[in-house]
């Protein structure tokens, strides 16, 4: 038996003290100093010195640490009640209609957290997809449309209506304007609404309501750059004042006289889409032949198989010659012209021959605004039987309806007092009419002048009232760009400023102020008045109820809004009756012929800025002109011969004088391809009230370029783009143009490869040389590149034959990837930031052929004959070799160039900090956070596609291109980092889109489909020239293209194993 041992802790326990036993029952045997702590007695003076020091030390440190960080004030508006459809981080897409120009392409708007950030083509829209009714159709959008999203976030838009230049409110303005209108109508004075070409059914109804209310009111349409010539010619010939639809894909031979249909003419995206269909060579299919006659080298001209420099002043003569040749064959009447209209190489005759051979499968168009010339074009097409085939008057275009003459009439009416009230509905004739000054004076005489311009432009500044219109992304509207094809515009953001869409303004003055309709969702959600639906929505619904019928209307209407389009079946086309007699035109044509030595100025629109309405949009200025690669300016394009004879060099300026108008010190470009005896100048520049980007006298911002509109010589019917008999002299001083490419030839290198269609038919590898031997690498092929590798291997293919060089991809890439805009000065320093550029290379036709036929050669000959040119040529040939003789006859290749994502990337090995590395999916990635900015990678990149952030472009007042204010920053894509100063950046193959696609597929438990991920450039390309995809997917389009014999890698011989394959350019230079 073990002895019982009693253990005790202390004497208290042993003695069983009363207090002790009680305390033992408590959880804590001793009193906790709770009370003391709670009363903060310790903080009083009785605390010990050590405690004091502890507390003191802690508080000082804590306060110091806390004050180290200045908490940034960020404005975030959380959703108190989250809208049903919005999930932060997930984009929402809406269908709408582009409002950048009257062409009105269908768009798909990408919004993130309620703000639109990207525009792309709506694939359902026949305008955006080039009349493709198949389900695979892909819609695209041009550079201008892409860029128009930035205008939404332009903080120079008017925030309130203006009354005599100062801010006012809508109630006051509406009352005053209504009163004024009633007074005018009562007094019998005329009222005019001047709009641009407008084909919106609802808007036209609004205007009809207005003119109905005020009997003295009338509506006229007027465009800065009109198609009056075609409209009037069709009115004369067919009794239809409209523009037909052109089907380039049905034409085997396309002949264009100065019409830049791929760049700026009528509906460039639609035309590019249909044009390209016949341009990509496929076995067993003929490639179309494109012949271009023009003075200025246009985007379309650069894509032509044969391009003939032509003096545009003589266009009529050449058209007549072509007409006569065809009439001769078809037994029609000749146009009697005294002047011979033939170009070097009998190109007119040969063109006629080809057209005749392809009668009914050809298309002749002209960019002229002279109705008489357009009548000859109509005559040619009629004889060839192209009507009903490639030209469609039944499913016509509505895009442009305005005739220049109407503005002249209006001006006269204002001056005679017949019209006393004018509402300028988003037109700016003070700037873009050649009699802008007179119009400005006339506005001063008006009793009521209203502008609906969204910014204080030239016309708005002259008007008494400015009722700022919404941006199209804030508006409800519709459009009918083509007969039977309706587009719908829906707002994707509530108005940023206190603006009101112009239709509502008109309605307020006619049927009275409409009260905003309550949003059907408003009952469920807490929303203030700003979120209420615009009353124009209701108005539009009533208009559409008539069209769609009451039955099941809301569902059908909602479907229309969802699709963005409502397309009816096309009407059957019939050959229109035609009985025009052109014999009378002969003498007129003879009178227009340019004299020897006369210089003609040809005005044109640039692919970026077009007519200048969006001159405050920096993306359009930063987009290099596809031919000259000049940003931020317009300039006189000179032929080499003229420049040499006047001693003018690049960097010099010229003075041009035409019809009493003088433009001094205009910068020049010596433009290869410019026809001798002609010069070119772009419209749309020289704005004086555009804003901080486009130039503003009020804000002391220099104009960008010079205004060429005053040079328009108004003819009786329409404004001609050809200004005859211009005096050119060397100006004072020099001017540096911002060019992104200054070395124009390719130095005989094989970065672009081309072949003729005939050669390609014989050998699909024609022109595509085998890579040079001795390709050796010390590195092992990485796992993911080996045969049978799982996972993705991203690659891209670019078809040089499809690419027209339009620049839509460049703008799209910049918007998608938050690429900063840097301005003229930085581009002069050659620091453009665009991740994607389009390299443009000229080549002389050294084989001397114009159109290859029975050994006819024109080597060394100027294609246009000019006085004294032969002597000059001889002199130049002695000095510089024979190349000058071909200077106006150049060929052009456009080559989009971006990061090639090399398998053995030279940039990756040289980075000391591993900031640029390779992903296991073949993408060369840039880790901005790790970059220390040694720029070594940029030096070692053989493609020179890396871009360095020389400054902190955002939040830098030197680069105030809308990204430096709270509003402008809303356009930034939240999926892409905004790069800081001092780091390198470059094309990422839109890795954010790749990632998004992969995550979506993963969430849906499937593999990624081919074509599901589209890079921004690919999505934008109207020519479908860019294909992106997974090389490890045997069935993918990219894999097929990689097997195409036309494929080659640029700088293949460096063995960097690039992931971008180019397909050779094929030219159809033979007679067809």
């Amino acid at each position, binding site marked *: 038996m073990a002895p019982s041992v009693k253990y005790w802790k202390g004497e208290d326990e042993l003695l069983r003290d009363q207090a002790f036993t009680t305390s033992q029952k408590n959880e804590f045997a001793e009193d906790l100093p709770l009370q003391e702590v709670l009363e903060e007695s310790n903080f009083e003076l009785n605390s010990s010195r050590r405690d004091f020091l502890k507390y003191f030390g802690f508080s000082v440190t804590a306060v110091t640490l806390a004050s180290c960080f200045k908490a940034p004030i960020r404005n975030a508006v959380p959703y108190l009640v989250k809208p049903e459809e919005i999930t932060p981080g997930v984009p929402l897409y809406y269908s709408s209609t582009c409002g950048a120009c009257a062409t009105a392409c269908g768009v798909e708007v990408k919004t993130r957290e309620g703000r639109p950030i990207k525009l792309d083509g709506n694939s359902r829209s026949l305008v955006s997809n080039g009349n493709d009714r198949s389900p695979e159709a892909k819609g695209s959008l041009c550079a201008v449309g892409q860029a128009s999203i930035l205008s939404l976030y332009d903080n120079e838009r008017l925030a309130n209506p203006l009354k005599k230049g100062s801010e006012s409110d809508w109630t006051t303005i509406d009352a005053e304007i209504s009163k004024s209108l009633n007074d005018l109508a009562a007094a019998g004075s005329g009222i005019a609404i001047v709009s641009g070409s407008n084909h919106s059914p609802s808007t036209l109804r609004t205007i009809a309501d207005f003119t109905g209310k005020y009997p003295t009111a009338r509506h006229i349409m007027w465009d800065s750059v009109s198609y009056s010539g075609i409209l009037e010619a069709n009115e004369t010939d067919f009794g239809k004042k409209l523009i037909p639809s052109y089907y380039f894909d049905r034409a085997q031979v396309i002949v264009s006289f100065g019409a830049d249909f791929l760049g700026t003419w009528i509906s460039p995206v639609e035309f590019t889409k249909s044009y390209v269909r016949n341009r990509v060579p496929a076995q067993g299919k003929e490639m179309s032949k494109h012949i271009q006659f023009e003075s200025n080298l246009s985007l379309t001209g650069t894509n032509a198989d044969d391009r003939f420099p032509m003096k545009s002043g003589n266009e009529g003569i050449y058209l007549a010659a072509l007409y006569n040749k065809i009439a001769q064959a078809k037994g029609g009447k000749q146009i009697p012209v005294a002047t011979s209209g033939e170009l070097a190489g009998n190109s007119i005759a040969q063109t006629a021959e080809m057209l005749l051979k392809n009668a009914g499968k050809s298309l002749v168009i002209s960019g002229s605004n002279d109705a008489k010339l357009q009548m000859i074009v109509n005559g040619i097409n009629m004889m060839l039987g192209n009507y009903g085939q490639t030209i469609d008057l039944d499913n016509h275009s509505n895009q442009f309806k305005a005739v220049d003459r109407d503005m002249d009439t209006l001006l006269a009416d204002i001056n005679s007092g017949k019209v006393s009230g004018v509402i300028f509905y988003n037109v700016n004739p003070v700037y873009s009419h050649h009699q802008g000054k007179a119009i400005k004076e006339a506005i001063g005489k008006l009793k009521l002048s209203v502008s609906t311009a969204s910014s204080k432009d030239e016309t708005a500044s002259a008007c008494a009232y400015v009722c700022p219109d919404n941006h199209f992304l804030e508006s409800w509207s519709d459009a009918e760009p083509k007969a039977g094809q309706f587009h719908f515009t829906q707002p994707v953001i509530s108005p940023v400023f206190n603006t009101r869409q112009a239709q509502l303004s008109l309605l307020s003055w006619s049927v009275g102020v409409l009260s905003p309709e309550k949003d059907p969702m408003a009952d469920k959600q807490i929303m203030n008045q700003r979120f209420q639906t615009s009353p124009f929505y209701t108005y539009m619904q009533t208009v559409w109820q008539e069209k769609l019928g009451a039955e099941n209307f809301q569902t059908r209407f909602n479907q229309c809004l969802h699709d963005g389009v409502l397309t009816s079946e096309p009407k059957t086309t019939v050959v229109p009756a035609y009985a025009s007699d052109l014999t009378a035109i002969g003498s007129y044509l003879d009178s227009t012929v340019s004299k020897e030595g006369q210089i003609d100025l040809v005005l044109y629109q640039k692919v970026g800025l077009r007519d200048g309405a969006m001159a405050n949009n920096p993306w359009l200025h930063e987009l290099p002109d596809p031919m000259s690669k000049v940003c931020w300016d317009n300039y006189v394009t000179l032929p080499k011969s003229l420049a040499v004879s006047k001693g003018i060099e690049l960097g010099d300026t010229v003075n041009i004088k035409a019809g009493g108008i003088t433009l001094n010190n205009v910068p020049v470009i010596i433009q290869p391809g410019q026809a001798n005896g002609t010069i070119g100048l772009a419209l749309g520049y020289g704005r004086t009230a555009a804003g901080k980007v486009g130039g503003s006298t009020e804000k002391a911002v220099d104009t960008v370029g010079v205004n060429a509109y005053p040079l328009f010589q108004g003819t009786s019917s329409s404004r001609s783009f050809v200004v005859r008999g211009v005096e050119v002299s060397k100006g004072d001083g020099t001017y540096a143009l911002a060019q992104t*490419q*200054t*070395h124009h*030839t*390719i*130095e*005989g*290198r094989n*970065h672009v490869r081309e072949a003729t269609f005939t050669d390609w038919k014989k050998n699909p590898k024609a022109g595509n040389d085998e890579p040079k031997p001795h390709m050796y690498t010390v590195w092992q092929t990485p796992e993911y590149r080996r045969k049978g590798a799982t996972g993705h291997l991203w690659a891209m293919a670019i078809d040089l034959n499809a690419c027209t060089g339009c620049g839509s991809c460049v703008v799209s890439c910049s918007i998608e990837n938050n690429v900063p805009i840097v301005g003229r000065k*930085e581009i002069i*320093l*050659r*620091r*453009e930031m665009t991740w994607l*550029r389009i*390299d*443009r*290379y000229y080549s002389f036709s050294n084989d001397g052929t114009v159109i290859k036929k029975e050994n006819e050669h024109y080597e060394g000959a100027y294609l246009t004959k000019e006085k004294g040119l032969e002597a000059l040529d001889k002199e130049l040939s002695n000095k510089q070799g024979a190349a000058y003789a071909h200077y106006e006859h150049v060929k052009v290749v456009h*080559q989009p*160039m971006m990061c090639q994502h090399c398998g053995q990337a*030279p940039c990756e*090995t*040289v*980075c*000391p*900090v*591993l900031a640029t590395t390779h992903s296991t999916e073949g993408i060369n990635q840039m880790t901005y956070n*790790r*970059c*220390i*900015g*040694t*720029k*070594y990678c*940029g*030096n*070692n990149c*053989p*493609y*020179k596609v*890396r*871009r*360095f*952030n*020389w*400054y*902190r472009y955002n939040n830098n007042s030197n680069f105030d291109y809308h990204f430096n204010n709270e509003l402008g920053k809303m356009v930034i894509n939240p999926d892409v980092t905004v790069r*800081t*100063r*001092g*780091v*390198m950046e470059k094309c990422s193959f839109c890795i954010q889109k790749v990632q998004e696609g992969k995550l979506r597929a993963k969430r849906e438990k499937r593999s990624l489909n081919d074509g599901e991920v589209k890079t921004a450039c690919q999505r934008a390309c109207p020519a479908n020239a860019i294909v992106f995809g997974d090389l490890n997917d045997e069935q993918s389009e990219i894999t097929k293209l990689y097997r195409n014999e036309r494929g080659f890698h*640029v*700088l293949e011989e*460096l063995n*960097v194993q690039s992931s971008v394959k180019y397909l050779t350019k094929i030219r159809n230079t033979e007679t067809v």
Partner: protein
Amino acid sequence: MNHDSIIRQPLVVGGKTPTDVTADISRPILNKPSTSWRVGFVISFIFLLLLVWTIGYTVWTGIGVWNINKSVMWGWDITNFVFWVGIGHAGTLISAILLLFRQKWRMSINRSAEAMTIFAVMCAAIFPVFHMGRVWVAYWALPLPNSFGSLWANFQSPLLWDVFAISTYFSVSLLFWYLGLIPDIATIRDKIKTKAGKFWYRVFSMGWTGSTRTWARYEVVSLILAGLSTPLVLSVHTIVSTDFATSLVPGWHTTIFPPYFVAGAIFSGFGMVLTLLIVARKVMNYENYITIGHLEAMAKVVMLTGTMVGMAYITEFFVAWYSGVEYEQYAFINRATGPYWWAYWSMMFCNLVSPQVFWFKWARTTPWFIFMISIVVNVGMWFERFVIIVTSLHRDYLPSSWVMYSASWTEIGIFLGTFGLFFTCFFLFSKFLPVINMSELKTILKNRE
């Protein structure tokens, strides 16, 4: 144990005794600075301020204030870097290789040449540091342990090799120089009168006693450091040249670069030593210590290395032609005949043609003439780096990206500013430290008793 040759020309003339040597060489340190020193120092210091300002402006505003662009991403910055690193090489060569080869004539000039090395490397280091877009994270280029997981430097990158090469070079050169200074600092310590002077020279002489044992240790360490420095003479510029040679830019991608760069570095280094010493011997009355014989020897080195460099230029052309690579061929034709032809022909004239005058004895022994040629050499070597860097980059593969480049005032300011730094350091050195190695020099005096 010195055996004086009766036949050889004395390396120090003027019948100097060891007492004279000490007196002559410590005079500038013990006396108040002369007017010419003050003027020179103030001018140098103004240029140093220019350096501070231009660099501050660059860091504050962004590299954008330079004129480098999307194709020529290195311009004056790296040109100047290579230029200054090259200059440093003469010091190391003189102190290390000539020491190993027991070239006693080096003793009059090695101190200043080594000082020059250190200051030149300091100037050089400014450029690769401040050409970084984000200089505040420059330390990321070092393989430092960090909390980011696997982030490490890229050992494939020649820029990283540069970091190691330059820092090793700088630390070894500094050690070597300081070691040689210790006996002389002790001499000054014993002579100086001011309180502060006594304190600092005592600190830096590290308790030098001049005992036999100390001397023996000193000799051994000198030899060890000389042995360590010797490969550095070759390695530093070899590694600098790999910045270019390992890239694929036509005109950079050349295997001849390492030897060619080393020869060029020695060439330019001697050019700079001549420039400095010809002025110094005149101003400080050291004609007896830095004799015509010294100048002649260095002129011969300049001629030899200049010819080597010239041969490399011509070889490059031959190889470009022989390679059959069109980009390579174009790069070299473009150098000679392109828009930067003037830089190329300046380089050719300065580096290949001008040193050939040293075949003539008169040219080698006339200080003002050598001085002129040394300036020409310096200019020529700057142009060499400019030609290599800029003319290669401005027209490389895709003609669409071909550009022109000219420096902005900030870049020029930084370059001039580094001269300010260099000469400020040099003036301070000549005021506070013996410019000539007194203790070593005493060993080669003819009349030591």
